[in-house]
């Protein structure tokens, strides 16, 4: 059960409710700039204020406000609101400007210095003029190879960079290319290992191979490497550990 506040009169309650609704509405209107001295809303606001004051001093007569003063007040209100809006806008603009400058600077830092970029662009132009033969090669390759078009463009890029860096001692390569290259090399090595030493091949150990002669001698001899010290390593380690613990326990119980 909600206990309602004791109501002195109906009118003030409704006035308060109206006041709560009215104020946010007026603020919104002010922000959007629609309110330009609308006397009705201004007039609507006043009696509510009056009513509030009237609520506390219900016996006094309401204040007398002229239309001009009310209008002036309303205009002041609007001007203030407009000012705040303008200030906010300029602030936001400045913020955005600063952010943009920051981004530009960061991007500039990321790129190479201007000198090298200039060189690259001029070099690429002269390259294209100098070596039509190279371009022909690239075209032929493009025709003959079915896939890896990306590769061709990479080739061209790599060639260009190589020709630029003649006076400097570096070479620009993409890391993705290196991974691809390594993967292919690994695959090739795996292929040859499988075909020579993989399943299905008839391989034996060097020990067995050399001991074959010993087996066929008139007096048979042992294998070339007879002892296998790598046998049962885990078992031997476990036994060692157990022995150590057992000794310690024995010492303890003896005491």
């Amino acid at each position: 059960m909600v206990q309602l506040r004791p109501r002195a009169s109906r009118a003030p309650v409704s006035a308060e409710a109206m006041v709560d609704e009215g104020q946010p509405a007026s603020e919104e209107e002010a922000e959007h700039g629609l309110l330009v001295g609308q006397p009705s809303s201004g007039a609507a606001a006043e009696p509510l204020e009056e009513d509030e004051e009237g609520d506390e001093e219900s016996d006094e007569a309401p204040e007398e406000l002229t239309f001009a003063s009310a209008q002036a007040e309303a205009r002041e209100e609007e001007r203030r609101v407009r000012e705040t809006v303008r200030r906010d806008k300029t602030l936001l603009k400045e913020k955005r400007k600063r952010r943009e400058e920051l981004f530009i600077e960061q991007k500039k830092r990321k790129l190479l210095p201007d000198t090298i970029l200039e060189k690259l662009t001029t070099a690429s132009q002269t390259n294209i003029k100098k070596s039509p033969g190279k371009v022909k090669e690239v075209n032929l390759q493009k025709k003959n190879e079915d896939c890896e078009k990306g590769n061709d463009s990479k080739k061209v890029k790599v060639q260009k960079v190589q020709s630029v860096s003649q006076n400097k001692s570096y070479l620009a390569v993409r890391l993705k290319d290196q991974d691809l290259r390594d993967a292919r090399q690994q695959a090739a090595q795996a292929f040859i290992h499988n075909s020579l030493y993989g399943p299905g091949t008839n391989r034996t150990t060097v020990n067995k191979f050399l001991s074959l002669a010993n087996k066929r001698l008139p007096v048979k001899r042992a294998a070339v490497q007879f002892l296998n010290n790598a046998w049962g390593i885990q078992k031997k380690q476990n036994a060692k550990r157990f022995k150590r613990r057992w000794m310690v326990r024995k010492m303890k119980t003896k005491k």
Partner: protein
Amino acid sequence: MGEFKVHRVRFFNYVPSAIRCVAYNNQSNRLAVSRTDGTVEIYNLSANYFQEKFFPGHESRATEALCWAEGQRLFSAGLNGEIIEYDLQALNIKYAMDAFGGPIWSMAASPSGSQLLVGCEDGSVKLFQITPDKIQFERNFDRQKSRILSLSWRPSGTHIAAGSIDYISVFDVKSGSTVHKMIVDRQYMGVSKRKCIVWGVAFLSDGTVISVDSAGKVQFWDSATGTLVKSHLIANADVQSIAVANQEDSFVVGTAEGTVFHFQLVPVTSNSGEKQWVRTKPFQHHTHDVRTVAHSPTSLISGGTDTHLVIRPLMEKVEVKNYDAALRKITFPHRRLISCSRKRQLLLFQFAHHLELWRLGSTVATGTVEAMCLLAVSADGNWLAASGTSAGVHVYNVKQLKLHCTVPAYNFPVTAMAVAPNTNNLVIAYSDQQVFEYSIPDKHYTDWSRTVQKHGFHHLWLQRDTPITHISFHPKRPMHILLHDAYMFCIIDKSLPLPNDKTLFYNPFPPTNESDVVQRRTAHAFKISKIYKPLLFMDLLDERTLVAVERPLDDIIAQLPPPIKKKKFGT
């Protein structure tokens, strides 16, 4: 001679790497050998099979194919996708060009020597033009489905055979398109699950293509019709390499079991003109896979995973039947990999990627003579002798930093040099087993050297097949020279008379057993001992101590990869 205490060192864990490719150059009679760790060695076959050039390698440059092109240019290609040209004068790599086809499996130079063909992982066959300073990509041939593992040019230069997995393609060079695609059976008259890899192809001028594959077959195909003519099953394991002679009347193949087979074109009957290919000789000189073979006009060359390089001269091709016609097996390096510091009793072992420094027992030594592969410094630091690939040994005066004199050029390369401590005589050993002594202050050969040259060396001395790799001297006895090769070490006593061909060269028994008269009659200047072998290094530490570094063959074999299983009756 005296008695010595010997430090016998066997802990130098030297394991040579497997031989991957061999390439024979006919004009200069030289052999290029590449190994799995990327090193390339050049052997001069006419200079007593001496290794004259050496390119140290790296695993990333491991080669899969090696070939000579026109003008003595050497190219190699590997799984990193690059074609590398070697500079034989400067002993470095000229350049490495990426072929953009993925890992390269095979390479062949055209019969004219001006074009290079490369077979790649992605199935493409690329043609490169060899320009005076570089190579240039020309065009691609038709792309195949699987990797191209072997290539061969027709001697006329019009067609190419490419071996792949389960098939062989024949291309026409002018158009670049496939003429025939010949399917290879997976097993000899049977079915097998494993793919048949065509490890080698050879194209003869009459249009026959010979292929060797992983099922152990040698097959003859006719390239005009694209059909199989004859099939020989020669092994239970892969046949991995093939090489044809220039005259096309014989070829050699190598198998994974270590056997090398010689095929010859013989007439069917003694007077008929018709000829057929017959398997004539098997050779079992290897224990592991024979990955590469080459055919020179007079001999068969093979190399593989067991790291030996075997050169077998063919009896019917050799004119003079002397010691030169015997089998040569090159196992140990021809350069010195060990250095010894006498004062500090230290041994320095040179491996492919690192050095090891070991300390010997504790005795006092005198004098230090440091010698590097082709340099020799005198004990007092005044003279420096250097021999390079050009002829002649130059002697420089270190104090005045200028050339002092030049030993006259000799047509064989130098294998070892050293300067005697007191007399400043330069002792040089050449690859044909000749030893010269040159006096640096007097700028001419010494009298002893002239006498030796006039007299000539004993024939057993000249027939040794490993080169002398180190010379050193006794500090207190200037008449003694200590030198060694892989199977013996020898002390030359200049005061004793020289042996002629009839004297007993190797004295197996110690001289104390015989009477004085016999001793005086048989004593000669060359005192040889074969106790320590195989010797990698031997030096004099001080007056009473020697150090000998041996490398038993069994220790090397124990570290090789697994060989093919052989079934023997009764095991």
